[in-house]
Each structure stands twice: as C-alpha cells, then as structure tokens.
C-alpha cells in the first residue's frame, strides 16, 4: 500500500511537468501580452515593463527561470494584481473555494445518496419519478440561470439572505453559493446512486442476505450501500476537484473571492504567472483527489487491492 502510494506520487511529477510546459507555451502563443491596453504603450515604457518582468529574455530562458522558481515553491508576481504575488493570491483564494467546495460536495453526497437510494427502493413509484424529474431538472439548468433565480427569490424578494459578497465568510453569505454549487452535484449523484442501487439490489449477495431473513434495513445499510457507492466514489474524485477549484460562474455571480475567478481573469488578462500558478495548483489537486479516490475504492471494494 505504501509502496503503491509512493509510486503513484512519483508518477505525478512527469505529469505535472508536461502540464506546466504545455501551459507555459500555450499561454505565450496566445496573441497579446499582459501589458497590452487599447492605447499601445510608448516603446520606452513597454521596454521598462518587459525588463522588470523579465519578458525581454529569450522564451526558453524564461521557461527555465519559471521551472526553477516553481521548484522553490514560488509562482512569481502577478502581472495583473501588481501588489500581490501569485502565491498570496492562491493562498487567499483557495481556503474560500475549499470551504465552499467541500461543503457543497458533502451536502451533495448526503442528499444525493439518500434520494438515489429512496428512488431505487421505490422504483417506478411516484417518489422515484419525482426524485428523477428533479434530478434531470438539476442537471439541465445551468448555474448561471439557477444562481440568479436563487438570489432574486431569497435576497431581493424575501430579503432573507445576502445577494452576494463574502463578508469574511459569514455563514449566511455562504448559504446560497453552496446551494448553487451543490444542486447540480446532487442531481448527478442521485441518478448514479439510483442506478447502481437497483443493480446491487438484484445481485446474488443481496438475495442471499434477504433469504437469510435479515431485516430490510440491515440489508440496505450493511450489505447494499457499500457496493452501491462505488460508482459514486469514482465520480467524487473529479467532482470534488472541480468544485473546490472553484466554480467561476458561482464566484462571479455571488462576488466570492475564490480561486476560479483568478483562472479566467488571469487568462483574459494574459497574466502569465497567475494562470500558470493556478494551472499547476489545479494539476496537483486533481492528481491528489484521484489518488485519494483510488485508495477509498480499495477500502470499499474487496476485489481491488494495491500492493
């Protein structure tokens, strides 16, 4: 197990290196530079800026400098937000995204698994149809439609919750964004859960358990739930990474200082260092979460063992 973990983590290094290299050169290939504005700068001023940020060096030298800095854990200064370094921006944005993302995924997991199980147990009943219709709706309505509706209803009309802003992470400011993040995930998870639960309930071990005369509650909770969770767990890895790296849409609409906005704004502003920093950080997170999921998988499924 330990050796497996070590091998996996070691294998992540070339992946990250490829990711960094691709991102670095793709970013530079995009037309326009970080300091371009509508009015082109006088050549002297452009030269001053390029010198300050080492953009006057040959590209390969800049690449080498960047790799060395990253190895030292330094993502460099942001070109756009001149008063901050990329490390600082990630350090302030990530805890926000992490808190929202983990809360959303936790809610999605509990509610999604619950709804999915109920639907599976009452297959083809009205409860099943209701849950599945809701899930379908949840999947189909994009965030940028859902979030404004939530704001209109709960903030503008009812006045119960703030319409946006972070307010240093006050609980009531997090409710709507978490719901906005969680709803589509609830929809996915409940559908996944329903499907896999139905399949498990028809399997031989469950039939045996029922034949032994175990009460239905025990059959479901002790014997059916664990194997039925497997597809959900493999979905959770990328989903968690996606949710906690920040939803640009949710962050934009609620004015939340998370990581997702930096990524998009960094790309639009050609803020090379910020985009690179976020890409590398995302890369590490996704690798990490997939790894965790694999470990959890091994715990849940007796057929999977790592050695």
């Amino acid at each position, binding site marked *: 197990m330990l050796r497996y973990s070590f091998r996996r983590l070691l294998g992540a290094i070339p992946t990250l290196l490829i990711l960094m290299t691709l991102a670095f050169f793709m970013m530079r290939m995009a037309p326009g530079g970080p300091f371009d504005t509508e009015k082109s700068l*006088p050549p002297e001023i452009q030269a001053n800026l390029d010198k300050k940020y080492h953009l006057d060096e040959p590209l390969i030298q800049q690449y080498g400098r960047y790799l060395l800095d990253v190895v030292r854990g330094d993502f460099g200064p942001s070109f756009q937000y001149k008063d*901050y370094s990329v490390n600082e921006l990630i350090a302030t*944005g990530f805890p926000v995204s992490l808190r929202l993302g983990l809360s959303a995924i936790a809610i999605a997991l509990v509610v999604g698994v619950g709804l999915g199980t109920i639907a599976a147990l009452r297959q083809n009943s009205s409860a099943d149809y209701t849950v599945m219709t809701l899930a379908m709706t949840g999947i189909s309505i994009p965030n940028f439609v859902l979030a404004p509706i939530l704001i209109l209803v709960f903030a503008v009309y009812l006045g119960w919750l703030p319409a946006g802003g*972070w307010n240093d992470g006050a609980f009531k400011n997090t409710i709507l964004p978490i719901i906005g993040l969680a709803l589509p995930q609830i929809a996915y998870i409940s559908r996944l859960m329903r499907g896999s639960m139905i399949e498990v309930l028809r399997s031989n071990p469950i039939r045996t358990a029922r034949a032994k005369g175990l009460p239905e509650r025990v059959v479901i909770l002790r014997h059916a739930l664990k194997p039925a969770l497997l597809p959900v767990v493999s979905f959770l890895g990328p989903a968690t990474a996606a949710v906690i790296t920040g939803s640009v849409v949710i962050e934009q609409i609620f004015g939340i200082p998370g990581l997702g906005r930096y990524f998009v704004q960094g790309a639009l502003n050609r803020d090379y260092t910020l985009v690179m920093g976020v890409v590398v950080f995302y890369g590490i997170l996704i690798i990490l979460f997939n790894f965790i999921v694999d470990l959890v998988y091994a715990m849940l499924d007796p057929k999977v063992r790592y050695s």
Partner: protein
Amino acid sequence: MRTLLLPLLAVTILYSSSAISRPDNLAKDQTLHRGNGAEVQTLDPHKAEGVPSANILRDLYEGLTIETPDGEVIPGTAESWEISDEGKTYVFKIRKNAKWSNGDPVTAHDFVYGLRRSVDPATASKYSQILAPVLHAEDVIAGKQPVGNLGVKALDEHTLEIRLKASTPYFLGLLNHSSTYPVHKGSVEKHGGQFSRPGKLVSNGAYALQEWVVQSHIKLERNPHYWDNDDTIIDTVYYYPIEDQSTELKRYRAGEIDRTEDIPSQQIKWIKKNLADELQVAPYLGNYYFGFNLTRPPFKGNLKLRRALSMAIDRKIITEKITGIGEKPLYSWVPPGINGYEAAKFDYADWTQKQRVEEARKLYKEAGYSRANPLTVEVRYNTSENHKKLAIAVAAMWKQALGVKTRLVNEEWKVFLENRKQKQVTQVFRAGWIGDYNDPYTFMEILHSKHGLNDSAYYNPEYDALLRQASMEGDPKKRFAIMRQAEELILRDHPVMPIYSYVSSHLIKPWVGNYKPNVLDHNYTKDLYITKH
C-alpha cells in the same frame, strides 16, 4: 507696454473652500457602499490604470488639485499657485495643515519624490505619459536623462515649482490624476512593492486604507489628519469589485450597495420603469466609433466609400433603439462636455437620414460599387453582447441603404487589440475612447500619426502640424480654434466613423446626498453624505 508686461505676468489663483453644507437629517451611520467594476490592479498610484483603481485612489490620495462634485478643478493639497513665464512655470503653495494619514506633514518634497517616482523607468508606470508636458519628463521616461533632471523642484518645505516644456492650458486638470500623486517616502522605502497594503499604506487624502480582501472588498476609513477632515462627513466607504452588472443590480436591489458603478443595459427598460428616481445618467467624456483600416483595400485611398458607409448609419436609431440608456448620436470627433470647446461637425450632421442615404448611394456608386457588385466588408469587434447588437444594426443599415455585405467578426479583447494594432486583417473595427482629462487634446492626439491608438493609420501632415501648433499655443481661445481646425480635417478625411457619445449611468440610493454627475464621472466620497433612511 503689453509686450513688456506679458512675460512678467503672474496669475495667482485662489478659491474658496469647497466645503459642503451639512444637512440636518444626517444618518448616524455614515457608511457608503459602492460597486466598483473590476478588481483593482494596484493601489500604487503610479502603477495604477483603469477606472476602478482611479475611483479608490481619488479617496485615498490627494493631488495638487482636486475637483468639485460638478467637475471643476479646484485647489487640493496646493492651496494656491502662480503661473508665470508664459504659462510654463507653476509655483504651488502646499497647505501647511496638509498631513499624511500617519500624521506626518505633506511637503513639497513629497511631491517631488512622487513625481520623480512616477516617471522613473524603474517604476515602469504605464501612465507616466500623463506627465509628458513637464520639462524633460519624456527623456526621463525613456532613460535618456536622470530622474533628477525632471522639471520639478521644492523651493522650500511648502513651495513646489513645476516647469513645463510648453504652455499647457489643461495642466492643472492633470494634477488630480493618480500618476501625479505624492507618495509617502518613508513607507515606500521601507516596504518596497508592498507599501500599498493595508496596515502599511500611508495616504494623504480624506481616507485611509483599512482592509483589502482581493475580489471581496476594499474598506477605507476617514483619515483624521486630512486637512479638510472637519468638512468630511462619510466615515467609512466600502468598494466592492462586481464585474457583472446584473449581479450588481441585484445587490443594489437587496440594499447591499448604495451606488452602482454601472447598469446592465439589457435591463434598462425595467430600470427606467421601476427605479427611475434612482437612475443617474449623464454625458460621459467618451466616443464610440468604428475605425477604418487605411493601409489596405477597400478603404485605402477611398474617401467616397468611407463617407458613404458613415452616412448610411442612422445614429439616431442606434442611440434610441440599440444602446438606449441616453447616449447621443455623435457627428463630431470630440464628444460634447468640454468647457468652452465647440466641436466641429460633419457637413451632413444636420441633414435628414433620407438625404444622407441618397448622398451615400451616390458616393457608393462613384466608389465603384453597386447592388450588382456590392462591397463585402468585415466589421471586427471585441466580444460583447452590446457591441454585437450595434454591429448587427450597422450591418443591416448598410445592407438596406447600399446593399453592402457585412461579415461580423468577434474576438477576445487581447486578440482583438493585437489585430487592430497589426493592421493586417482589420477592415472596419470597433473602438472607443474615454478622455483622460477635460480637454479636446485627449481625443485629438489619438489620431496623430505616431499615436498608440491610431489603429486606422491616419496620416495627414497638416493634422500633425496643427496638433503641434496647438500644444505650443498659450492662449486658450486660439488653442481651441486650432484644434477645431484639426477636427475639421478628421471629419473631412473620415479615418473613423464616430457613432455615439458615451453616458455614465449609476443607480444611487435616495439617501446618498450631494451626488452630482460630471463629464469625467469623478466622484469623491468626501463630498457625499448619507441622510436618515
């Protein structure tokens, strides 16, 4: 006699205080919540650019001059000044009671330090060009002269001398731009690039930086050492970065912000119906135009075609049906709103649209096109719903009036700018410019053959010569007359098609007092107050 007197003539200007009268029904909690567009890039006044940082810096810092709520330039940290040497030497008296937010006095040396830092190549400021009128500034920026040679000098603690290259009648108006602000030498030297952080930033304006949570808010608190602190009413101001205008509107409706930075134009009808009393729309010193690429066919050397296309645009329909907030059709290059300047106009400005279309058809034919042999043209714009709507409308007008086939191309902002500058693929492109200061020159210089925004590649030696002449002319009246002459050349040569002049539009809660719109859309929080509500 007159000739003898003129060089000695010194102008002393003194103004009364800009104090606002204090109303009786003030709210107990004097806190203002402002929406502020994009996240600010920096609070270092010499590196700042863009409206969001300018808004905040105007509260944090104070230049030699400031503006009244109406936009009139009045003394700021300088209480008075003398202009001599035919408008080329300015001597400012710095207020004796001007203080930094840590209690240190603001001196002439602070201004010398700030102005030098602003043009120092090591600062790599993008906006240092604002200081170009100052003697040797351009050479210093280019690294050809040491920073010490900049034409600024502290004659004593409270007297600052600035020498200019040539008389610059709008110079006082430049002195409220952030690139001319003083910075606190001690803290800049101590904290380096981090001096603009909360807890470190020392400022000389009415407010001091309290909190800055990137992408969440910036909180400013009253600077108790500010010289005009007694007349400042609002204690605390929050700036929220909210880029999406619909989001901003919702937060405004939920009562979280008192003043929006903008309004969502697609919801203008709803706003006019439901929030009419809170909507503030005012002319804004900016022009929205389409440029022609004059380096390539079909527009190179084809004045008739350019004129025809411009005439076929029904600007009234565009401003009434497409933009709809209150923008005005623009038939000149310089938008309205500059004191004392009457812009030149297209010869067809006062025609009916029917007459214009008739003339356009004639010109189109003379340029060698017809319904059977139509022009195919590309209109390029940066991706945005509003630009798209406008481009579609223009394309429809051209098709209807002349039979032109238009292809619309939208591009992401930086790609778009790159293409515009390269002048290889562009034909007709969208552009716009918001004046940096209240003077026609801020628009005229754009079409100078060497200017960085002249993406049309307009080159008329006569025009360049007139601009040069204008920048040397000390007499404001004559200067405006020269610029009007230059503007007439633009309108004759048609390198661009001005379409409309901008408006600023904000929603402002009824309890925000003393808010007045002005053409540069500069609002100082210190001039406002909150009434009971």
